[in-house]
């Protein structure tokens, strides 16, 4: 189980990296944390002719909060984000989800940008980016453009980036102050890909739900935003019955695949179960803050 040969490139700047991508296109592959790519290369399922290793681009490793938005350089390690006091204080759902991404040894290398660009259908960060209406900045040879999460995820492991573009920043709009949150997932083992997972952010004002966000993972080719379920919640007084309605709406909104670990039916069912529980937990947290 040894990788096939490749040419290795270490750009020091984003411009160098983009130039290399322009030169190699389909023949080039960006190496960030490598925790998903390198296993595929070791198994020779992936045989990129050129590896463009962006790990030396210092400028891409940063994490800051600006005007209600969390800005993460693409190369920020998952572990750094997980440990960031800023995230713990302003976007705890992200911290809670990060803790379930593989294991410490994986997160020490794995990057936030990599998780998003890899777009694993069972990824955690993708679902949260979608639920929070996040966006990414990508740099191409000609221009820099911003892609909204809603337009980013195309299908299995596929985003709307073109092969010449490099993802350079991920932005998570912060949930309103005092909002409750919950990340829940069912995985076979600690650290495994979720069979199904859901992230919920809930803001409650004057006894009614002012804002609701529900993002799911592991239940289809891309992360899913349960928009209809969200609409059903907003303006309503919180109640278990209401959570149950939302859970039903979620079941209706997802079309999971089955695999050897869980059938499509199981995933659909559990997506609902988790939604109900996550809403409850998020609500309780919101209440505590209030």
């Amino acid at each position, binding site marked *: *189980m*040894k*990788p*096939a*040969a490749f040419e290795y490139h270490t750009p020091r700047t984003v411009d160098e990296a983009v130039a290399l991508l322009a030169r190699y296109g389909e023949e080039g592959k960006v190496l960030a944390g490598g925790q998903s790519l390198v296993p595929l290369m070791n*198994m*020779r399922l992936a045989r990129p002719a050129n590896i463009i290793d962006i790990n030396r681009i210092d400028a891409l490793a940063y994490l800051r909060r600006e005007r209600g938005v969390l800005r993460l350089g693409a190369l920020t390690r998952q572990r750094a984000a997980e440990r960031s006091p800023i995230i713990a204080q302003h976007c705890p759902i992200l911290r809670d989800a990060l803790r379930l991404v593989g294991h410490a040894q994986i997160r020490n290398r794995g990057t936030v940008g990599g998780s998003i660009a890899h777009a694993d259908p069972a990824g955690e960060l993708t679902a949260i980016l979608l639920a929070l209406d996040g966006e990414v900045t990508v740099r191409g040879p000609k221009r820099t453009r911003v892609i909204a999460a809603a337009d980013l995820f195309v299908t299995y492991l596929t985003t709307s980036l073109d092969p010449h573009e490099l993802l350079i920043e991920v932005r998570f709009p912060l949930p309103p102050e005092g909002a409750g949150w919950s990340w829940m997932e*069912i995985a*076979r*083992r*600690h*650290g*495994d*890909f979720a*069979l199904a997972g859901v992230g919920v952010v809930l803001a409650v004002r004057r006894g009614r739900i002012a804002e609701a966000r529900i993002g799911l993972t592991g239940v289809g080719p891309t992360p899913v935003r349960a928009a209809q379920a969200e609409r059903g919640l907003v303006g309503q007084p919180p109640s278990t019955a209401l959570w149950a309605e939302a859970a039903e709406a979620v079941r209706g909104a997802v079309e999971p695949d089955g695999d*050897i*670990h*869980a*059938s499509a039916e*199981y995933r659909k*069912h*559990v997506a609902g*179960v*988790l939604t109900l529980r996550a809403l409850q937990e998020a609500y309780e947290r919101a209440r505590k803050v209030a």
Partner: protein
Amino acid sequence: MSTRYAGARVPRNEDPALLRGRGLFVDDLALPNLAHAAVLRSPHAHARIVRIDAGRARRAPGVAAVLTHADLGEFGGPLPMLIPHPTLIHPKTQQPLASSVVRHVGEPVALVVAESRYAAEDASDLIEVEYAPLPAAVDLTAAAAPGAPLVHANTGTNVCAHYTQRVGDVEHAMALAPHRFRERLVVDRGTASPIETRGVVASWDPRTQRLEIWDSTQAPIPIRNGLAAMFHLPQPSVRVVAPDVGGGFGPKVMMFYPEEILVPLAAMRLGRPVKWIEDRREHFVATNQEREQIHDAEIGLDETGRILALRTVFLYDAGAYCPYGLIVPIVASTTLPGPYRLPNYHAEFNAVFTNKTTVSPYRGAGRPHGVFVMERLLDRAACELGIDRTEIRRRNLIQPDEFPYAVGLIYQDNAPVEYDSGNYPRCLEHATEMIGYAGWADQQAAYRAAGRCVGLGVACYVEGTGIGPYEGCRVTVDPSGKVFVSTGVGTQGQGHMTSFAQLVADQLGVTPRDVVVRTGDTDGFRWGTGTFASRAAVVAGTAASLAAQAVREKTQLVAATLLEARPKEIDLAEGKVFVRGVPARALSLGEVAAAANPLRFAMPAEWEGPGLEATRYFAPPRGTFSNGVHACIVEVDPETGMVSLLRYVVVHDCGRLINPMIVEGQIHGGVAQGIGGAYWEKLAYDAQGQPLATTFMDYLLPTAVEVPPIEVGHEETPTPLNPLGVKGAGEAGVIPVGAAIAQAVEDALRPFDIHITEMPLSPNRVRQLVAKARRTP
């Protein structure tokens, strides 16, 4: 002489080197001019090989050789039949490289040797093989049915053996039984997955005409003997070393895996050492697997829950070949009766070829299946007859005064199954005490009131261990005072370097640290069979103790002349040899060893040769039977099917304990593997025989989070079958885990009245059971 070390928690001699990263595993071996091999394997479960073109591979940079079947000549196979059986009518073994037909995904087709493993894999990508796919026999039931695609064209059937064992008159007893219950019970495929995969390094020295092999095997001596025969070399011209072996659990006993022939052959042909290290993906298709069986079983009981008769007719999935004969299904059918009186018993199986990886024993080796069947039937009976599940077991247990107890069956070693000793009722009491069975009903009610589904399971087993034919051991005292011990049974982590040292230390009055145990090198000890079937401590341990005893007597003899006393007056302690009661008249053990090897003058005839050294062999008349009871408490989330283990209790009787710390470690590991097989680990195949779990991302070994703390209680009923009174412990942990967890999950979900008949469970399966539950609370 007072025992000091046997029975004590002595820290292991082997640990310091391993903790420093100074172990020597096969892959750690670096030899000058070493070449590296990669194996090209079949992507098809069943196909005809139309054409192989290795031309481009042979011309690829850094390639030393490419072997296909056409290049093997007399080594083309088929490989030897390891364990034949009279009822095995189609004893099929594989060729080192497939010639015309591949019969499972992963069957070797070509071997590439190159300057690096990277280059070898590059070249193997260049080998063109044209396959004509054939229909595959995958599903066990379907493969056994007439008209199924044939795994071996010339057999006319996939059933390679049909074997029946009977006790009493089952038909009669069953007909008279007032209560009868039938179950179809299924155990699916799993794999041992030691963290170190297999590996072979071979080196041929044309000057000395000597072949040296380093092999991650549990049985170096049989490998040495087999290779010598195959390569027409006298046994002393072949050395096989099993250095540090990173876990075995059964699959590392084979004779042969293809690579164990191909790598030495390549080394001899090329005149340079060759290394092959199995990668993890290969391990999932090329290393033997186990567990798959389907039992149709029926139990008959009287009004009081006493078993009158039991019948099981089952299918055993042999995989594509059957080099290991019928060991697994025989062990399954002879383990089924367990600790219970079974006056009438009928066990009948068909061993069936399928286009899946070959099956050979994996820790438990059929025992978990037998126990799963027996315990599930008792659970069903208890439930239907309204008898407490521990009570129905108690009523059927063999009593302490009934030993030796002849079960009436023939075991894997062709000896009668005769339980030598034990106290089954006490083990059951001990376990139910530890788990708190008496107060369980209230405790469970409290959980239910709090909306939690928590359940308890209890399961019993008897384990055949310590079978023959024999093992031997040589003990030598060095003038330095160190004691050197050599034996044929290698270790894969069971702690032989310590437990054998304890036994020897007690005889020679030294500490286990003074005793250096060497195993797994055929140059170190020439006779033996290997480490399997929970036999090493029993058979080799006894041999070590006997050899040490002989050395002790020789020491007394030699010291007597030196210290002018009678041998009987000589004592050994703290590394000293002295006259009892006169500690001043003393020599160090090393001094006596030196004196025992005189340079001049006459040597007393009664010494029977120089040195403080002796070799002894132990050949047990038959196996000795350990037993135990497992009890666990699980919590189930009926909405998601997630099961978590809250407590796990093991009460275990393996006779006298040499090192309780090591025995407990063995049990912990066995339980963890059992837990994996009960809920996480499943080798899924698709309808075409493609394995769907060939990575650790899809084949789920439990982690520290999934495995609960394991509480171990010991009972010690010595066996009369060896002077130490010890029984085997290696497999105990894994055996009844599935049975205990199945019962516990049913108990947790009693409000839903679900019924478990298949292993492994999974969140998906548990959820399915709840969804179509016979009741909803």
